[in-house]
């Protein structure tokens, strides 16, 4: 056992050392990271959007429980003065019964769309009600390509609604000059590593850099590395990467927005991994927008040397989060009204009495 563990540890250490060596070499070879200035939040209004979501299969129905909360922090002279909530500080969740005939894959896509839908609606309402300077959403502000479906699908209507909501959100933020950011808590994205591989590393290799040998020897490691894992070695506290575009994504229903979607990584605290931020910006304003967004998000994400996440999202998450107990309560209340009905029976595999 000890030998197995030792071997495993050695492998991980070896890969980590390669990542670290490559990061150091790139850092010495080319300037790709920037300092984030410490700012005063002044009188900013920062709004966080998060949702709570649960789904469960029963014998004759699939149950979805969802809610979304907007938590708007009003700062005065850099201090948090008040917090407002939408629809309120503890909204009752909404229940959706889904046709059991959907395949598992359709149900998963539908679930994701339903989650997006309620959070996007909430973000649009929050814009109207709070008129914030910046909206930060928990998760990406870009619809995941895996959610794209054919017009013939039975859940296309929901998909079309969600894409419309995304576009509405982009437009409203752009029109009202509101910064729109998605903070991805545990990103598995590799976009930045791909960008390094395709754009940055060839540049360094073609230059006279003395790091060329090290880079060439370790660059393969980027194929199997997530952005945040690699950037852990590249970024220091209060630093960010350059912003890169999503133009290669070619989201079919977002043509007019594809060149306005960007991603950057920031490192607000010493011992946590870098945090991925997605955002929209007019290409001509990219530097200015990146600077503003990273400064604000970095400022409100320093709560612990080991943990960085925007405070508005921590608060919104605490308000919106749903627990398994809540779906059980809901199901029990429904079952009480229904009486003995097989529709809400637990799946056999989940209800074994023995």
């Amino acid at each position: 056992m000890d030998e197995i563990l030792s071997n495993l540890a050695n492998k991980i250490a070896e890969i980590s050392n390669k990542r670290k060596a490559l990061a150091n070499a790139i850092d010495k070879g080319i300037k790709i990271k920037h300092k984030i200035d410490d700012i005063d939040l002044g009188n900013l209004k920062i709004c966080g959007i998060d949702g709570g979501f649960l789904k469960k299969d029963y014998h004759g129905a699939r149950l979805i429980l969802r809610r979304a909360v907007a938590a708007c922090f009003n700062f005065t002279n850099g201090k948090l003065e008040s917090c407002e909530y939408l629809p309120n500080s503890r909204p009752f969740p909404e229940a959706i019964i889904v046709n059991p005939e959907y395949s598992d894959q359709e149900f998963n896509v539908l679930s994701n769309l339903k989650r997006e839908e309620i959070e996007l609606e909430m973000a649009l309402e929050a814009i109207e009600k709070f008129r914030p300077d910046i909206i930060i959403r928990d998760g990406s502000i870009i619809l995941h390509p895996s959610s794209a479906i054919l017009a013939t699908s039975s859940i296309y209507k929901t998909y079309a609604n969600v894409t419309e909501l995304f576009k509405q959100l982009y437009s409203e933020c752009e029109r009202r000059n509101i910064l729109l950011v998605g903070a991805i808590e545990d990103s598995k994205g590799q976009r930045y590593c791909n960008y390094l591989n395709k754009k940055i590393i060839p540049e360094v290799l073609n230059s006279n850099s003395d790091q060329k040998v090290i880079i060439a020897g370790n660059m393969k490691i980027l194929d199997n590395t997530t952005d945040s894992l690699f950037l852990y070695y590249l970024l220091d506290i209060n630093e960010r990467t350059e912003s890169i575009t999503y133009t290669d994504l070619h989201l079919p229903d977002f043509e007019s927005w594809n060149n306005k979607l960007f991603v950057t990584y920031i490192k607000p605290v010493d011992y946590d991994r870098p945090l991925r931020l997605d955002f929209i910006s007019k290409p001509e304003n990219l530097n200015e927008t990146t600077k503003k967004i990273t400064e604000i998000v970095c400022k409100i994400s320093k709560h612990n040397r080991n943990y960085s996440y925007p405070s508005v999202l921590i608060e919104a998450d605490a308000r919106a989060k749903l627990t398994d107990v809540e779906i059980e309560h809901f199901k029990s209340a429904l079952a009480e009204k229904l009486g003995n009905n097989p529709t809400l029976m637990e799946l056999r595999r989940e209800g074994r009495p023995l």
Partner: protein
Amino acid sequence: MTRLGTIIATPEGPSVNNFSFVISAGQIVKRGQFVSVDTEDGRAIATVSNIFKTNRYFESAGSVNEQNKTSQLYSAFPVKEWEYTIAEAHISGAYDAKQNLIRPSFPPSPGSEVKSVESEILSKFLGLDMKRGINLGQVQQHELDAKFNMTRMIQKHLAILAISGSGKSYTTTVLIEELVNRGLKDGRIAILVIDNHGEYENLKDDPALKDKITIIDANEVKVGCKHMTGRAFAALLPRMSGVQVRDLNRIIQTVRKEDGNFDLTDLIESIKVDETMGKKTAEALISWLSELEYMKVFAGDDYPAIEDFMQQGKVVILNLKDILRLDKKQFIVDFISKRMFELRRRNAIPPYLEIIEEAHNFCPEGAKSENALSRKIIETLAREGRKFYANICLISQRPVQLSTTALSQCNTQIIMRVTNPYDLDHIKKSAEAISSGTLDMISSLKVGEAIVIGEAANHPVFIKVRERKTKESHGTKLEDYAILWEAKNENSKLADGNEFL
């Protein structure tokens, strides 16, 4: 009824005994307060036993510590929005549909509303006597007079327990005021106060009470020898053997005069010259009787004739403050208590309450008989007095040193602040109704606050003792007394110097 909060589900409840509830914003709920909640059994009444606050932002010690290093939580998060006050309550009973008080057999539901309790319901629930009750003050956290039925509070005896300075004597004075001011139709009793330190003598100065108070200086109490027999002496001298009692009886017969009286000196002299008595017996008897003679409590007749003073609605204060010897104090208390009980059994005096201050001195636990001369009669009163309307009220700051036999017979206990863990343990053992939560509250009571437990109230109830109507005699403060003392000594030195010159 005001809505005070909502019951929450916790790992422990709600159960038939306990529940927790989140206090509604703007509502004030305090420890010891009575609250109500609807259950399937009816309306349950519960006592708030604990209150605490919680806040998710401060749950992790590590996070709070980190926050201290980096930034201030208050300026980064809406922490106040997450502060909840949670109260824990203990269910004492429930009223069913027919308004019968029952023991709940079904818990309230999570989400149920917790409401305040109306005064009429609470009065009924606690078994208070709003018409003729003894008004000790106010039920804490409620606009309700704490009026206890006299029979329930006194007839099965009463104990007032607390540390020094927490208001025992004050409460006793309130009790005395209530008892002496009862109307003829309310039922009045006579009161005897065994006043160890002269704390009650100022009641005589109060215009409203002066005609109802008689103070007896314990130094003037005399025991008539004509009542004494060898057995009576043996009760005072527990080490006396049967042979010694027989010999003493024989000598008493020789010295007793025609009127039945005799003198203790004559008795001792007769023993000295008696030739039939063994030398050791004679020496022991002479030694013991000399001790008794030294107390100077024996005389030809009893004084005072207690039956003359014990009257309904009146108070006799036996002032022991000038007696230093504890055995003499015990002897006098023993004599008076026995005499009173005997008279009551013969229906010669009215029903009475004997209030014994510093009761642990007169009825100590674990002391040898010769060091606890009055214990036996107090324990007898505790056991048998109820049947003869001879009632006792034991007051003590050291319950652990008070006879368990006597204390356990005090069916009502007024407990004020007690902090000594041994005393608290002793109190818990002597009163079944005290839960560990209540015990915690006893140690944090303020001056003038008390919990009444036992026969007088259906459920333990916290009260704030009312202001006494009589004038309070505040002792001189330590600083002032020290200044006076020093000034007095300086003057006396000066006087001595002048004389010398």
